[in-house]
């Protein structure tokens, strides 16, 4: 369900001019500490590459 919803949301974001990559769903189980840390690290890197969100830029301006 969440997966479906996220897919839909990504479309919606695209529509709103926001890179869909800015929304990320990851399954991490209770036993997967390293996977969590890695996921966050990767996601932060990705967002850094994308730069500030268009909406954030707009707000700042």
């Amino acid at each position, binding site marked *: *369900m*969440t997966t479906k*919803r*996220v897919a*839909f*949301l990504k479309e*919606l*974001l695209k529509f*709103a001019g*926001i890179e869909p990559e*800015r*929304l*990320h*769903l*990851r*399954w*991490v*189980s*209770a*036993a*997967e*500490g*390293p*996977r*969590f*840390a*890695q*996921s*966050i*690290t990767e*996601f*932060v*890197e*990705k*967002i*850094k590459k*994308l*730069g*500030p*969100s268009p*909406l*954030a830029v*707009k*707000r*700042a301006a």
Partner: protein
Amino acid sequence: MSENGFQPKIIAFLCNWCAYAGADLAGVSRLQYPPNTRTVRVLCSASVSPHHVLKAFQKGVDGVFIGG
């Protein structure tokens, strides 16, 4: 705002039973990761509604992470 100095603000919706626990375990294991996320604890990733995500972007976050 230069590319290098850019510190994104990211919201993480984490499921209490899975990703939140995984995040705790990362802490217990002292794994280091970037300090850019701010966590909203939810009881299940299924409870993260589109409203929440859109609201976050509307407020100007640079990314939304859903940990199920």
